[in-house]
């Protein structure tokens, strides 16, 4: 009986201690987490990726040669990448085709970034991709060219009084 009573008192005591500790919750739309680097990138010369968040892609039109390797890498994974004609003529892109990504299908594995040998594709920190229509999730090469603005400031701070997002 005494054992039961002390057990319950210990459990309650441990809970009461948490009144004084700081709140760990991230208040999402106001606060956003800080991520490592600019996004996930791949360096084909060393064959190793560079750490970063796997969010929406970013496409450099002046590097893309229309080789379709990203589209081939996506076959059997998500089939999200389609090669489409682009109006602007690039010197290195004779066929004038560039990837168009359907974020309704993309699983954000980043194998397309690993496949690109010309440093044309990388993934950014932008993860807010919701849309009211299915068509809104399909990003054309022109949309992928835009570098997103992502405000990130919150980090996990560990103090004597517990962990908090600040």
């Amino acid at each position, binding site marked *: 009986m005494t054992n039961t009573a002390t057990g319950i008192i210990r459990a309650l005591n441990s809970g009461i201690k948490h009144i004084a500790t700081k709140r760990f919750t991230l208040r999402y739309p106001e606060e956003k987490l800080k991520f490592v680097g600019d996004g996930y990138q791949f360096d084909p010369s060393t064959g190793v990726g560079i750490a970063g968040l796997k969010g929406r892609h970013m496409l450099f039109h002046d590097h893309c040669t229309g080789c379709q390797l990203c589209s081939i890498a996506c076959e059997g994974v*998500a089939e999200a990448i389609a090669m489409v004609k682009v109006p602007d003529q690039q010197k290195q892109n004779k066929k004038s085709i560039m990837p168009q990504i359907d974020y309704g299908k993309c699983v954000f594995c*980043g*194998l397309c970034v690993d496949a690109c040998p010309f440093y044309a594709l990388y993934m950014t920190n932008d993860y807010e991709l919701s849309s009211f229509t299915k068509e809104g999730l399909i990003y054309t090469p022109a949309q992928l060219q835009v570098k997103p603005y992502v405000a990130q400031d919150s980090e996990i701070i560990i103090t004597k009084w517990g962990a908090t997002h600040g």
Partner: protein
Amino acid sequence: MTNEFLPPGLALQKADERIMTLNVGPQHPGSGHMRIIVQIDGDYIVACDPDPGYVHRGEEKMAEYRNYITNIPHLERPVIHDSCNVLYPYVLGVEDLLGIEVPERAKYVRVICSELNRCIYTMYWLAIYGIFLGHSTMFMWPAGDRELLIDLMEKISGARVTHAHFVPGGVRNDLPPNFEEVCLRQVNYFEKRIREYAAVFYDNPILISRTQDTGVLSREDAIRLGVTGSVLRASGVDYDLRKKEPYDVYEELDVHSNVMKEGDSYARSKIPWLDMLESCNIIKQALEKMPKSGSVRVKLKPNPKGKGLNSVYKRVESGRGSLGCHIVSDGKVEPYRLKLSVGSFRNLIALPYLLKGEKLGNMPSVYWSLNYWPVEADR
């Protein structure tokens, strides 16, 4: 229509004024659909028939149509919280087939990712165990503290779940700058937090009264039924693949496996918690022994092929026990056959034996203590 052509649970049964058949589910308790058909006599369970198969995705057949690299993103779907460990045997097997030697630093990074993932999975499992027992603090605390480790995995691989981080030949990318410092700080705090769980959950008389002496699995039965992982260790069998068949760099690390003799739901719920403390210890050791710089990935040819007709079987200790992967290659870019042998399914086999004679109210605590993940069991 005779009984043999009907699915289980729908079959007509002889009317019995005492025995009632109850369909618990199909429902989705935060993990995947499952159903348990129980026959009760008053409040006591007479017979029980677990019915997996609601989330069968055909992972093994799908793997036969994809090459060795594009198999990676879909093979980690069975357990998204433990995706590194699910991928581990596959990656080890493909490396064996292709004859690749992995750099030393990549092996340590893999061990760190694998242990972080084990903790992430176990915290999620513990949170759901709290829901099953009606203990809302036990849901809130692990679900919140899990965030510390998810943040670390996000820093390493760029994804919160389904990291697709392991590849044949190493890992996808190197650790971010000054990761060791951040990792050590957050893992130390995580360890301090989960030590607090003892007072609130494991020494709490309310949780003990719900779980102690329910669903007792004896040592002999555990070996006979072939259960693995925490369920096996809770029954007094010291069997941990990280110690018995060390893969990658586990033989250089000091791994201690936790064993309890009781074999009841309480022991089965406590062993994963002790394993998490052990995982924190392994992460700290690995951070210390890891080479500070060096390559983390061997360059592969674009479409790697196995050499001739060949097969390989590799297994690792996942969050749910031994997880094996059998790959048969016939010299093409796709595997000829891929078979996953998972711990969840083996642990589920014990359920009918454990529930016989228990009260119906004890069913959730026995069921979820088996460390069973429906999606992984169905593949």
